[in-house]
């Protein structure tokens, strides 16, 4: 099963139902550490790295396959079909929320629920739609990435400091977290920030929870409301949080919203 190595898949936890966690642009599956702990006593958990991120097999980063989010969604389908025998709960952060949505549109029978944390169907402003960004902002982001990847490039010594007061964070984590090949990062940034899946929202049939921060630069409240309006039957939970990673900075409220939602679905 090549996807196990390709996506650096880790399965653990106990339970009849499987939750698959997908990280967003920038970091890797270690993002879920704080969030997963509480759930792993009741659910089987599957964590993985998107190809091109974390400890995935970088040699399999196919610039053609991953020029759209569908390429990642196809990987998710392989992972879900290969790791679970019944429909899964999918938790996706940011761009991975859309990736999971695309996967569930293609094979709805494999998904019991889709939990979107800080999702955005399109980051670009377009007429009355306020995604939050213009094209020049994306160019600016690419420049910022370039500026940093000079120091972060894979053949230089790890630039990220260790964390002496956090012994549970292993050395390997400090070395790999948020680092990847600069060219892949550029490409992934472009694909992520230029993707537009607004028209796909209406195709969703999987029960969906949108976890929306009340102050998120990347996914403004209006975007969460837009998704909520477009996906019929979806649930919108707004959490008090500054930033794009509420599962890191406000894990409590995020978990609470998640568990409530799953309880209602009987999962």
């Amino acid at each position, binding site marked *: 099963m090549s996807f196990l190595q390709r996506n650096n898949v880790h399965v653990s936890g106990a339970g009849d139902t499987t939750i698959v966690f997908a990280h*967003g*642009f*920038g*970091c890797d599956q*270690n*993002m879920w*550490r704080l969030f997963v702990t509480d759930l792993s006593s009741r659910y089987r958990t599957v964590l993985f790295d998107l190809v091109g991120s974390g400890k995935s097999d970088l040699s399999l980063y196919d610039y053609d396959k991953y020029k759209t989010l569908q390429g990642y969604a196809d990987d998710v389908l392989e992972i879900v079909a290969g790791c679970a025998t019944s429909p899964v709960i999918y938790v996706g952060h*940011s761009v991975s929320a859309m990736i999971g949505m695309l996967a569930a549109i293609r094979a709805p029978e494999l998904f019991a629920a889709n939990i979107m944390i800080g999702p955005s169907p399109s980051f670009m402003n377009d007429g009355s739609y306020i995604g939050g*960004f213009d094209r*020049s*902002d*994306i*160019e*600016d*982001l*690419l*420049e*910022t*990435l*370039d*500026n*940093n990847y*000079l*120091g972060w490039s894979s053949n230089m010594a790890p*630039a*990220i*400091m*260790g*964390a002496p*007061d*956090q012994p549970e*964070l292993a050395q390997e*984590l*400090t070395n790999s*977290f*948020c680092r990847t090949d600069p060219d892949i990062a550029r490409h992934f940034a472009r694909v992520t*920030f230029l993707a537009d899946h607004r028209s796909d929202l209406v195709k969703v049939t999987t029960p969906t929870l949108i976890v929306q921060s009340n102050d*998120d*630069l*990347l996914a403004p409240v209006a975007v969460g409301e837009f998704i909520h309006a477009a996906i019929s039957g979806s649930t919108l939970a707004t959490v008090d949080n*500054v*930033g*794009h*990673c509420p599962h*890191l*900075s406000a894990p409590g409220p995020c978990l609470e919203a998640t568990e409530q939602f799953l309880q209602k679905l009987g999962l």
Partner: protein
Amino acid sequence: MDTSHRPLVPISEGYERAPCGLLTTGIDGTILRVNDTFCRWTGFAAADLLDKRRIQDLLTMGGKVFHQTHWAPLLQMQRSVAEVKLEIRHRDGHKVPMLINAVRHIEDGAEYDDFACMLVMDRHKYEQELLLVRQQAQRALEEKTLAEEALRSADRRKDEFVATIAHELRNPLAPIQAAARLFGMQNFSDPQLAWSSRVLDRQSNQLARLVDDLLDISRVAEGKLEMKIEHVDLVGILRLASEAARGMMEAAGHTFLVDLPGRALFVEADPGRLTQIVGNLLTNATKYTPEGGTIKLSVRREEGNATIVVRDTGIGIASQDLASIFGIFAQLSSGQSRSQGGLGIGLSLVRALTERHGGRVDVTSEGMNKGSEFTVHLPLSPVQIDSRETTAMPASGVAGRLRVLIVDDSEDAALSLATLLDIDGHEARTASSGATALEVIPGFRPDVIVIDIGLPDMSGYDLARRAKESGAGSKTLLIALTGRSLMQDRQAAIEAGFQHFMTKPVDYETLLSVLI
């Protein structure tokens, strides 16, 4: 001067004027403390920042996204970040590049982030330069790859074109050569006609040689050159080749010296290709030696090699041409070569064929008009005795007056061959398709059927099988003709029951030798 007891400024003053920007923020980024240095570098008064702005508010848009996707999660998970380079917006709008370290800590139950920022103006410029150079290198590499691919593709198309040309030229050549031969058999009383006939014969044969060379060189380029390696006596082959070349030497008024040892030198080689190597060298020597010159062919044993030397007293080679003389289409830069004709592929074929035998070819010349010496080194066989098994060849030869059926959809080729056979006392008929041939066979009862493999209505292989079923006896000699000379064609021909396989154009002498 003793400075050890001089009191330092208070820590707070040291904080304010530290040579780096220092800030403390809440974990949402709200600036709670900032030093003078940071304020001076960014143009803000402390009052503009404290409790009013978050550190991410001072970043460019790209920096803000980066802060969300990389920096904040790192700080959250690792509680520290080092060497992040971001641009801070100066109050007046311009960007100030800074290298930032941050540490998260808990104080009385509340979490704070401490930042230290260094100006990196020069480093930033240097890095921009590096990035630019990297991009340029990337582009250059891409362009190089594209250009190489385009070259390779053009080269492949050239090879295919040369192969196609050679194949296409071969087909009309066969009937032209046969017709020329027919003319040659007439006793023309008109001397002009007799002369024309000789010209036609000579020139069509020359054309056939050029086309064969062209075909061979295209096979070399496409890696399709076939070799039939045998244990052969090189001396014997050189003797035959020298006999064949003697006429050409005499016609050019050259003295031809042949110095061959009395005993055999065995090599593992394709005898036909060896003949071609020597033939090309001798032709080359004849061509580039003015009338009345001396050409010498010799062979000697040198350690594990047989060394063939062809030396002439010809126009020689300028030292600047020596290195490229074996290149394809290479001709002498002197401009003299054109007048001698030729495609400039003879020597490149010599080199390719020699290398295919595991050998090496060299050339030396003392300069213009001082003659040339070509040397071919071939590895000697470890077995220096005649190990060939003299297997009894299948009795393919049939003697006397023969009935020959020629099946070929090229009417010119079939008719000219039939006419030559008629003149030599055989009875020849032609058929332009497989179906016609099958009609003719029962009544004609041919001794020999020459079949073109590429017939319009059926393959020559099928015709061979059906011919045997429809009354052509087991004694009927089947000869396959093909435009190509590929191993799989030969194999298919043998399987279909052909005893001989010839490539077009048919060399009439070879055909006769098979019949007799």
